[in-house]
Every structure is written in C-alpha cells, then in structure tokens.
C-alpha cells in the first residue's frame, strides 16, 4: 500500500492562488491604489499599466500555446535515427529561418512600442495641465510632512502637517524639498512619485477629479519610521475648500474655560513649546509639526493613529512605543496637567 502523499503542495498551491486573487482584488480597490485613478496623472499611468499588461498577456498566451503545440507535435513524431537528426532539407531550413526573423522582428517592434508609449506617457504627465494652479509647498521631515500654503498676502500664509487639502478639478503645483534625508511623495490614486531632496527644490503637480480622501506614502526609504510616514490628500468641492482655507488662515482659538487655559499653560511652560508652533501664542518653534489647528486633522503622527483623546494622550506620554525612533521625546505629566493639555489641544479646531 502506498503511503498517503503529503498534502502540502496542493495546500501551498491553493493558498498561493488565493493570495493572487486577494492581491488582485485589493490592488483594484480604491485605498492607496494606482489602479483606481482619481486624477489625470494617475489615470495616464493606470492606462499605460493596463495596455502593457494586456500586450504582455497576449504575447504570453501565444508563446505558451506555440510551446505546447511544439511539444505535442514532437511527442507524436517518431524519433529519427542519429544520422538524420540535424539534417533538414534546404526548404525546411529556409522556413525556419524566416520564422525566427519574423518572431524577432515582431518582438523588437513590440518592445520599441513599449518604450515609446512609456516615454510619451512620462512626458505627458510631467506637463502641468491648465494655468493658475494652486501652489503648495511640502517639506519632508523624518517622519512627517510639513505642508505650507503660500499666498500673495503674507498674512494668509499658514502651515499644517500631513494633510493636503485641495479643491476638486483645479491643478495643484507642489514645490518640495526635504529637511534631513531624501523622501518621496506618492499618492497612488492621484499621482507621483517625486523625490524630496535636501537642499534642492523639486516640483510636481496633480489634479484630483473627484472628491475624497486619498492616502499617500513616503516612497523612498528614509529611516526607522519610513512606513509610518503617510499623508492624506483631501479633495473637496471648491466652496468647502475655501472655508477650510479661511479657517486654517486664522490663529488658534484662545482658551475660554479654566481647563483649557491650564492646558495652554502646560503647553507653553513645558517641553512642547521647544518644537511646536501654535499661532496666536508665543509658541513658534519649527522642529515639529505646526499644531495651530491640530483638532481639525484626521490623524496624528503622520497617519499613524486616528486623532482622538486616547491616542493623543498615549502619543504625548510615550510616543516611542507608538512610533519607535520618532523625534518626539516621552513626556512625564501628572494626570491633571495631561487632562488640561488634552482639553486645550482638542480645542484647537
């Protein structure tokens, strides 16, 4: 009796195929996917992707079919004796030569057309579409994104972090640089990538064609917390965007009740003030993210955690557990001070 064969290979195969299916499904769904384009740049890249994949699939099917046919035909033919094995008639040799030449020619044409298509798509996405783009400056830090909205009137300048609000349908011109090491800006649904280089300015542009929140990610390994260096592009209808702009341009609201007043005092007298800015207060340091309208943001620590009281408390007390290596030090606060500080930070709408 034969021993039962181990089932590992079949289980492996089924797991693998399941993984492939899942990868396809996940890859095509919207969250941070280049295959779900929401703007012209990502759209051009997605179209290029699908055209290359289609041609490659057709070529694959043709080659594999030819191979299977050749094997099948070869297996049916009787083996020639040694003397005749390399001897074809001149006609046969000519046919084979012609076949090889045609196959090589077709391959060359296909490959060259790939080159031309990808180069032309590359140059077309690099051109800024439309005039009067919205200008935004982005500075990459270990490990967060500083986002500045410059304006002709310097009173209107403001800074935020890790969240780029843009109006739907308007081209956005992004000027980028980095503070420390090379980072890379990539929001797969919208566009990118483009490197942020210390001491050098690079430019990219994008346009979001439908409203939504699109996750982006640093795409150049930049240190310990590279994976937790995310940002969000929030595409809003024009009016909504304008009202957001107005709100962000304003100073932080002054604390009104005693708890938030105490919290402001904790902020201004403690270590927080050494790195962070809250406009309308003496806090004006630029080592860490600007916290003027912290409570209006969706996440903290560059997309690491949702912005809520519990996460904020954990982050303030011990950021090194949440994001080991982050430049924010742990802070020792007594419970009253922490509660007051949290109340103050959450009032910064």
């Amino acid at each position: 009796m034969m021993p039962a064969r181990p089932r590992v290979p079949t289980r492996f195969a089924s797991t693998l195929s399941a993984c492939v299916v899942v990868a396809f499904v996940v890859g095509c769904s919207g969250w941070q996917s280049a295959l779900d384009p929401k703007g012209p740049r990502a759209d051009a890249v997605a179209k290029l992707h699908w055209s290359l994949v289609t041609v490659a699939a057709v070529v694959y099917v043709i080659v594999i079919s030819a191979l299977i046919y050749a094997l099948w035909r070869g297996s049916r033919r009787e083996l020639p004796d040694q003397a005749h094995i390399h001897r074809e008639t001149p006609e046969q040799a000519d046919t084979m030569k012609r076949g090889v030449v045609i196959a090589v020619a077709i391959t060359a044409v296909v490959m060259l057309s790939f080159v031309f298509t990808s180069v032309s798509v590359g140059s077309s996405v690099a051109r800024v579409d439309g005039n009067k783009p919205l200008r935004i400056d982005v500075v990459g830090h270990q490990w967060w994104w500083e986002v500045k909205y410059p304006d002709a009137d310097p009173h209107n300048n403001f800074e935020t972090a890790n969240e780029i609000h843009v109006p739907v349908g308007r081209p956005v011109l992004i000027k980028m640089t980095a503070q420390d090491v090379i980072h890379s800006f990539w929001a797969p649904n919208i566009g990118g990538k483009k490197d942020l280089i210390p001491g050098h300015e690079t430019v990219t542009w994008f346009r979001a064609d439908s409203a939504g929140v699109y996750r982006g990610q640093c795409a150049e390994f930049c240190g310990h917390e590279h994976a937790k260096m995310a940002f969000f592009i929030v595409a809003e209808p024009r009016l909504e965007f304008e009202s957001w702009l107005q709100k962000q341009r304003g100073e932080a609201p002054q604390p009104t009740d005693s708890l938030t007043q105490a919290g402001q005092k904790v902020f201004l007298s403690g270590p927080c003030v050494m790195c962070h800015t809250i406009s309308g207060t003496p806090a004006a340091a630029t080592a860490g993210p600007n916290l003027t309208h912290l409570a209006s943001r969706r996440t903290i620590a560059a997309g690491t955690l949702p912005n809520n009281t519990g996460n904020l408390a954990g982050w303030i007390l011990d950021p090194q557990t949440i994001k080991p290596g982050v430049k924010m030090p742990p802070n020792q606060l007594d419970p009253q001070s922490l509660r007051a500080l949290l109340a103050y930070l959450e009032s910064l709408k």
Partner: protein
Amino acid sequence: MTRILSLAPTPMRWGGLFIVALAAMLSCKREQRRFRETPPSATAANLVTMSELQPGPAVIEAELRNPYEDNAYAVSEGKRLFDQMNCSGCHSHGGGGIGPPLTDNEWIYGSEPQNIFSTIIEGRPNGMPAFRGKLPNYQIWQLVAYVRALGGIQGKAVRTTRDDHMMYKESEQARDKGHPSPTFVPPTSVKQ
C-alpha cells in the same frame, strides 16, 4: 579535503568565534539605538558644585558617566538638537560668537559630562539659558555627548561625520583631539 572543510569545534575555533562575536557586539554598542529607556537621573548631576570649597568635611566629587558617551546615534541626535534648540544661535556650530566657542580646550564651567549637563540644565550667567523642564534629561545627555564631540574630547569613533545641510566646515570626526581647529578663520585685515 573533507578534513579541511569540517567544522568540528576545536578550542582554536571557539576562541576565534568568541573574538569575532565580541568585536560584533562592541560595534553594535556603538550603533545601538535606544529609543525608549529610563532617563538618567538628573538629581545625580546636582552633586556638581561651582566651587571647590565646601562646608564640613571634604567629600570626593562623584564621578558621573554619560550613558551616551560611546554611542554614535546619541551623538548625532545631540547634533540635531544642537541646531534645533538654537545652540548655534550663540555658539555658532561650536565656533562661538555671542557665546564662547566649544571647539577649544578652555572651559569656563568645566568640560566633564556632569559639568556640561549642569551648565545646560541650570544656565550660566551672562547669556546661557536654563533648559530645565524644557528638554527631557536623556536629550540633554545627548547634547552633552555632542558638545564633547565638538570639542574633540569624545572618542573619534562615535563623532559625527556629516551635516544635514551643506558642509562648510570639517566634520567633528575630522578634528584632532586636543587640537581642535577653529571653524571660522577671519580673513586677514588689510593694514591701513
């Protein structure tokens, strides 16, 4: 052939392995990145006094060791803080300006780690602000490690080798111990 290739443990091989492992462990220590640890006590640094005289019987001054003295990561973190906390505003990347230079051998308030720690924590008359309560102790120890690297007191192996911005002076590592070179040489003035 098989005899040459066999890896049977012999005392010689064990010894060699031990030395290799020791070397690897030592270099690990230099590059170790301790993100989360109990900060060194700040009260210990209070043993440092400004005067050699003291009431009562003479007590030998406690020898304090900076836990980051031999750690390259901590020194480079100190360098980052040195810029971010605007130490360069007065000490100008160690060359001095409003504040005294930190690249020479003359230290007004002492060059031992505990002296520098106290100077940063307490501040000093005529300009040096006190950082107590503004920075956690471990970051101040990192600053101490970097300041000593600036002065060339720190071991060469852990000193920083590059700046995040354009390099306009030699790196801390390139400096000679005991003979720190000035970062800024004023052009020779034209005699009237």
